[in-house]
């Protein structure tokens, strides 16, 4: 059986374990990561063309993005030459280091920016169906649990049922939703919401927007307008503009990050649907090319399925299912 055949088979059985590991695993040490990736590297005894090819495919298979993968592989080749590395095992920490480094960024990027003297405004943007509204529900709950006063703005006045969807989340979480009729100007909704947030003196205002494809000029302009309206009412706002990316998205996510970044000043990413088998490796390319930090990951459809992003864990998850395939293949499924 070829490596990838085995790989494919093992992915399905491994995912559950991987997910729960990722979930609780935020406390896991860096050694676990090193160990996991180590398995992958120890399987091959020699660093040759085939080795690099396999590594390339693993990374591309995780949607890391062709350019970034080629760059990484070139860097690894250079390291191998420079340090006269012969064993894959020696190369492995260099790779994970590089990946984690690419993803981590500086410390002050990790948390969410907050407004120290007033309302913190968080704006959500992204293409259709990525999970904006759901993430808003989850985030509202998170803030609520921290004892914060939260208000939601139903800025998706376009998609059928979008306002109702946010309202359901509002009820679930126990926070109010500021809305207008379906079809009304989203910028006007934002204006209302900011006024109301000020009046109630809430801690956090989270704004939903309609999904839009980044190549739609008019819709992107609309987003720029929403941004401006919020900023006019609270000059330091929005304090975070989060672009939501679906982990199943391929290289188009780069384009999304680029164009949403230009039009709405994105400050961070949320990677959703990581509870599937999609690896969301494209955030590495985005981080690499546009240096946007990942703030949260979505791991399911429930209120508490939102986790703060952890670069180590992510790199770990990226390789899990890939690593140790040989051993895994002999184990019975669903143990």
């Amino acid at each position, binding site marked *: 059986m070829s490596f990838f055949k085995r790989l494919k088979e093992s992915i399905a059985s491994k*995912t559950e374990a991987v997910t729960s590991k990722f979930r609780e695993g935020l406390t896991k040490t860096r050694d676990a990561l090193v160990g996991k990736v180590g398995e992958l590297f120890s399987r091959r005894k020699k660093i040759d063309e085939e080795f690099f090819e396999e590594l390339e495919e693993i990374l591309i*298979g995780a949607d890391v993005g062709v350019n970034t993968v080629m760059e990484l592989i070139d860097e690894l080749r250079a390291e191998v030459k420079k340090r006269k590395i012969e064993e894959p095992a020696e190369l492995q920490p260099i790779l994970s280091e590089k990946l984690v480094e690419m993803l981590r960024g500086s410390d002050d990027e990790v948390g969410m920016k907050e407004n120290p003297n007033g309302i913190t405004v968080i704006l959500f943007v992204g293409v259709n*169906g990525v999970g904006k509204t759901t993430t808003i529900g989850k985030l509202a709950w998170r803030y609520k649990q921290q004892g914060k006063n939260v208000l939601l703005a139903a800025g998706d006045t376009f998609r*059928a049922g979008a306002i109702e*969807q946010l309202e359901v989340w509002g009820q679930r979480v126990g926070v109010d939703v500021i809305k207008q009729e379906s079809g009304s100007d989203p910028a006007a909704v934002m204006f209302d919401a900011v006024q109301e947030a000020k009046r109630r003196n809430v801690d956090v205002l989270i704004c939903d927007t309609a999904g839009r*494809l980044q190549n739609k000029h008019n819709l992107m302009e609309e987003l720029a307008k929403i941004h401006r309206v919020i900023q006019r009412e609270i000059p330091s706002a929005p304090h975070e503009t989060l672009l939501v990316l679906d982990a199943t998205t*391929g290289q188009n996510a780069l*384009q999304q990050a680029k164009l949403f970044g230009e039009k709405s000043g994105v400050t961070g990413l949320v990677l959703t649907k990581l509870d*599937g088998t999609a690896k969301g490796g494209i955030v590495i390319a985005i981080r690499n090319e546009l240096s946007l930090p990942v703030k949260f990951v979505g791991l399911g459809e429930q209120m508490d399925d939102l986790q703060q992003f952890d670069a180590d864990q992510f790199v770990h998850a990226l390789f899990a299912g890939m690593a140790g395939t040989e051993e895994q293949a002999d184990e019975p499924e669903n143990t």
Partner: protein
Amino acid sequence: MAFEGLTTRLQNVFGKLKGRGKVSEDDVNEAMREVRLALLEADVNFKVVKDFIAKVKEQATGIEVQKSFTPAMVIIDIVNKELTELMGGTQEKLAKANKPPTVILMAGLQGAGKTTLTGKLAKLLQSQNHKPLLVAGDIYRPAAIKQLQVLGEQIGAQVFTLGDKISPVEIAKQGVQLAKDQGNDYVLIDTAGRLQIDEELMQEIKDIHAAVKPDEVLLVVDAMTGQEAVNVAKSFHEQLALTGVVLTKLDGDTRGGAALSVKAVTGCPIKFASTGEKIDQLEPFHPDRMASRILGMGDMLSLIEKAQTNMDAEKAAEMERKMRNADFTFDDFLEQMEQVRRMGPLDQLLDMLPGMNKVKNNPNFKIDEKQIARTEAIAKSMTKAEKKKPDIINYSRRKRIAAGSGTTLADVNRLLRQFEDMKKMMKQFSGMMGPKGPKGGMKALKGMFGGKGGKNMKFPF
């Protein structure tokens, strides 16, 4: 013509030699490296790419190159044909039951676009004088039922729901029964998005399948899906015996390699392409266009369509006349910019033009949207008279314009100089909308957005 992008890349591999007799194995290997990259960049699954390359390689090795062709052309031809065929040669229609109603079941991941598609398909069926019944089978996502109801209301189609407390299997069953009783000839069952590894929910949709025995099971796939498309399609196919695929969000700027992945692992025909948020934006799927899009070869057809829908025909004709007579003013320039912009971000427009890859890769060439915005700002800061007769713009006027537009004197000077140059190119540019078709258009666009300085093309912004 349509494959000029990859052609250029391959020509770099082969050189410009024509008719070199047989294509050697080395040539083919090197060419396949380029093809592989093109496919991977488009998100075709790496395993699918591998198989595809192996197949094409076999066909290409040792093939005879005719006198008038280059090896690159021969290989492109093989790649194109093979890809188009893989994508599904002819177009496939929606299934139709011998005894109505025809039952159609939607399946797919969260956020793929199932509910919207259900509405669109109903609308399409209505336009063919059918009477579809929509069944609201997504009881999980908040307000999913409401979404379908709104869509149903928009098009005047009946939506069947039992709320969100009854099992979707029961809802589907009763929905089909209602259609039978009422004489609806189609039943479209919307379902909740689900991950292919979610056993509970996969069992649920299998139960729906068993209960209503659909004539058509459509997998709804987001065209932006990456490598994961293979796992999703394979798993849904194994568990549900899909009969067709619908690609959504194709109005985006994705290359859409997922289409090939899904087709390769399921063998199911891609029946529709969903191309917008409006209820009538559902199109038949064109394998040939998809092939060229995946290869990044520039989709002239969609560019022309885009131009047609976005450019006002009358304005275009007027503009052309002005250009030909070279009485083009800054007002016209602003107008022109607006028209072009409505088609989308410039670098994406360029992507659709064959041959632009090469231009774009030229380090001297850069489309800088900020620079363009600056240019627009300068033009907007001119008075009416100045826009009409740029000749009158003297030093003090230049200074005022620079201040007014938040740019520098040098910026203004540059633009004025370039505007003059541009007027000289007008004759060429008029070809874009003229009868000479896309060839002239390409030159014109190259002229308009081309690199700066030296023997490179001028950048008029």
